[in-house]
């Protein structure tokens, strides 16, 4: 089965610092990938490169077999390559219902309409509410985002991404800052997403990674160290070395 | 001075409340000009002139109490001027509108004067056409062609053949440029170059260097006052322009008092044409200057005398009409009025309702350690030449 997202020889450096070196990965449809590695390994940079927030110095990015290297971030999202942010990047003064409805309106290209009230678009609102409800945000969907507890804001990050109908979802530390007992819930929500969606997530909690990911990519110093099933990764001596000798436990 | 203003304004408010009761015994005058912003000093001086006249002649004329209602126009804003004029007439029930420091404001208010048939005294705005906009308007300042054509004629007469003109790039400047060039060329001179500097320009070195490079006999400069004259004076000195070889001439604003203080000896020898200066030698003016200094601790200028003579027209016209404030009656009374002003003899042209006066040619000289504009030539009873050329209606 051909990969839904593939990178070929991605390179990126800032001055003399190489943050991405010859990165080639291929994600098949519906797989749950974890991207791990010590701090500064280039994980977030890789997501930025794939989603078009950074321009690579060299290499290619393919989505569904099409070269999307030259496309802007918006166009990549429209084609189904969507991300979330490690640090909440939400709309503080919109409520979740408005934020998700906004995303759906943009997706459906009705966001240009300025003569009909938003409330006329019942289908969009229903869909927005459906997504929020599936992420347990239904009861709070009319409260301003900035007033929501942190954990619910993390869920809203995912809700916004889902509202774009992604093929590939790149989650940058979705549970960052969430207490452990809640992060488990959050990941349950992630794994129960539709099997049509390919998920790649960055996570530091190894227990969660090994429990939830079907495959794992290990990055070190801007390059891919190895890629494999959780069993293969946990057995690999190089990974042990990186983690025992590295900065992160 | 400040307290006087506030007091006056408070009084005005109180009177407003009891207006209907006193309507018969007061003459209300809406004073519309800039009391704040870039042109605030103009308003201050006009207002000082008016107040001095009222102090000297009492605030009652023809049995009626004269009451000023000042309104701040805040700069170039004809829309505001028009509204203030409307409000003054409609709300405050004033009998006449006076003041007007800037041409666009005067033009806009003139519409209201014409429509409401109210007497209007333009005490400053100097563009020629203004008085044609309302048949109820007189002017007590001067017109740009009146001064600058006189200057152009005089410059040629004094021996200059090649002139360079440098004017502020907005309409009054353009008018001054046109007037000077017209008269200078008509007399037989040649304009070898001209430039217009940006309205807000404050550094004139580049312009004057350019003028100097063309070595004209005379450099004509038009400035609207403010900080620019001093800056020009300094730039002339810095560029090393020799005033014996190249005359620097302009309308009176170029050598205002503050300008002379700022430029110091650099200003010596500048020649200007104007209708008034506090150094004008006459008994009437000596007293005026002394009283003015006693009252406001500074010298009067052309704005002050515009306000002073404006009040004179108002008082005399009211005397003639015996207190009748009807626009037609007042304008009829004002037409042809002639009197001795601090600036010398002046009159209101019965045809155009515009000012007729002497234009003095003055040179900056040091008198008793002080820089003064010393009159050394004059043109008598000059009418606005622009209107003289206009086809008779």
């Amino acid at each position, binding site marked *: 089965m051909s990969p839904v997202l593939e990178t070929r020889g991605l390179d990126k450096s800032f001055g003399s610092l190489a943050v991405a070196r010859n990165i080639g990965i291929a994600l098949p449809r519906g797989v749950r990938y974890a991207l791990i590695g010590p701090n500064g390994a280039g994980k977030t940079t890789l997501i930025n490169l794939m989603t078009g927030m950074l321009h690579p110095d060299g290499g290619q990015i393919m989505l569904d077999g099409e070269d999307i290297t030259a496309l802007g971030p918006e166009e990549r999202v429209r084609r189904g390559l969507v991300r979330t942010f490690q640090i909440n990047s939400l709309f503080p003064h919109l409520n979740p219902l408005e934020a998700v409805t906004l995303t759906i309106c943009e997706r459906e290209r009705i966001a240009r309409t300025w003569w009909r009230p938003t409330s006329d678009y019942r289908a969009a609102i229903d869909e927005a509410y459906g997504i929020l409800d599936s992420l347990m945000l239904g009861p709070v969907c009319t409260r301003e985002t900035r007033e929501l507890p942190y954990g619910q804001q993390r869920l809203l990050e995912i809700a916004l991404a889902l509202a774009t109908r992604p093929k590939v979802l790149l989650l940058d530390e979705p549970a960052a800052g969430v207490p452990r007992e809640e992060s488990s819930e959050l990941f349950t929500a992630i794994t129960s997403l539709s099997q049509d969606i390919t998920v790649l997530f960055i996570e530091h909690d190894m227990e969660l990674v090994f429990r939830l990911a079907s495959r794992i990519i290990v990055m070190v110093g801007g390059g891919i160290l190895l890629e494999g099933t959780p069993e293969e990764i946990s057995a690999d001596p190089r990974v042990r070395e990186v983690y025992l000798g590295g900065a992160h436990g | 001075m400040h307290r006087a203003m506030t007091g006056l304004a408070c009084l005005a408010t109180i009177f407003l409340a009891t207006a209907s009761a006193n309507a018969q015994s007061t003459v209300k005058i809406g004073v519309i000009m800039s009391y704040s912003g870039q042109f605030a000093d103009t308003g201050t001086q006009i207002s000082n002139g008016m107040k001095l006249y009222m102090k000297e002649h009492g605030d009652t004329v023809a049995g009626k109490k004269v009451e000023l209602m000042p309104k701040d126009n805040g700069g170039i804003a004809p829309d505001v001027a028009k509204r203030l004029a409307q409000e003054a007439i409609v709300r405050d029930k004033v009998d006449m509108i006076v003041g007007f420091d800037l041409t666009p404001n005067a033009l806009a208010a003139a519409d209201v004067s014409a429509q409401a048939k109210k007497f209007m005294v333009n005490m400053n705005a100097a563009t020629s056409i203004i008085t044609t906009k309302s048949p109820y308007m007189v002017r007590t300042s001067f017109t740009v062609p009146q001064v600058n054509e006189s200057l152009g004629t005089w410059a040629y007469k004094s021996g200059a053949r090649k002139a360079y003109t440098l004017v502020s790039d907005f309409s009054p400047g353009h008018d001054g440029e046109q007037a000077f060039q017209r008269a200078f060329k008509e007399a037989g001179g040649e304009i070898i170059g001209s430039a217009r500097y940006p309205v*807000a320009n404050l550094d004139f*070195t*580049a312009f004057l260097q350019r003028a100097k490079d063309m070595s004209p006999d005379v450099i004509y400069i038009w400035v609207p006052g403010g900080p620019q004259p001093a800056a020009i004076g*300094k730039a002339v000195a*810095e560029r090393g322009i020799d005033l014996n070889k190249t005359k620097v001439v302009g309308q009176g604003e170029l050598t205002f008092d503050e300008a002379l*203080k*700022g430029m110091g000896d650099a200003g010596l020898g500048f020649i200007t044409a104007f209708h008034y200066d506090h150094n004008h030698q006459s008994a009437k003016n000596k007293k005026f200057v002394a009283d003015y200094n006693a009252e406001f601790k500074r010298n009067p200028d052309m704005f002050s005398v515009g306000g002073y003579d404006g009040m004179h027209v108002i008082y005399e016209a009211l005397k003639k009409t015996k207190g009748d404030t009807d626009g037609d009656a007042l304008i009829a009374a004002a037409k042809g009025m002639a009197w001795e002003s601090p600036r010398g003899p002046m009159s209101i042209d019965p045809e155009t309702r515009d000012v007729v006066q002497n234009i003095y040619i003055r040179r900056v000289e040091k008198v008793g350690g002080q820089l003064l504009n010393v009159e050394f030539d004059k043109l008598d009873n000059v009418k606005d030449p622009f209107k003289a050329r206009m086809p008779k209606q």
Partner: protein
Amino acid sequence: MMTSLLGVLFDGFAYGMLLFLLSVGLSVTLGMMNFVNLAHCTFGMIGGYATVTLMNAWGWPFLATLPVAFIAAAMISVVFERTMFRRLYRASDLDQCLLTIGLVFVSVATAAFIYGTIQQPVQLPGYLRGSVHIGGVTLGVYRVFLIVFALAVSGLLVAALEFTRFGAQVRAAVDNQRMARGLGINVDGAFAITFALGSGLAGLGGALAIDIVGLDPSFALAYLVYVLIVVACGGLGSIGGTFAAAVLLGISDMAGKYYFPAIGSFMIYFVMISLLMWRPSGIFGRR
């Protein structure tokens, strides 16, 4: 041709120096605390009036008034900072705009009340007037003085920021405020001092500007636009950028007026727009 070019460059440079002194404080404080201080030129005006008062009322020599202009502006600015500005560091920049424009209004009215609306005259000492001729180029003595003075001040400023502990703290705070706080730097304190310094420089600029551009109560508003232009073109928090922008704008303004008098007034805006389109964060801007 060559001499006129040199003359224009010289005059433009002198004008640029004036703009630099008036603007540099705003650039640093804006870069450091993100505080939008539209009242910056008010401090320039305070410096100007300090000089005028000392010279005309007490007969001080011009040069002796300059330090007082600096100190007066700096001290008054500290009072404003402590009593009002600091409450708004975390407020929206629109609120900051409103507060500082309110201050400008108040200061304009106060100046008009105390000094009247009249243009303030200042008579320079003889040795600063007139001009010198060097190789066919006429140089105004005051402009030479202005350039030397401003260069010395900027030299001092750069040295203070580069080589002192306080300077290092300020640079750290401009670069990354959060990090600087984390390192235990008293950012608020450093800011207060920087703010006073910047306002003092504006005061100095205001005093030096009287002879070239005059002084009346509208100074606080009239020069705001030029200062904003210089700050934006230079890049926030960059002294070098502010210097470069001030010189560039001063020279292009002067050259525009000399060589293309018909479009002289467009020049400064035109240069600014093109520059910002090319480099939206200013000449040496980082963001």
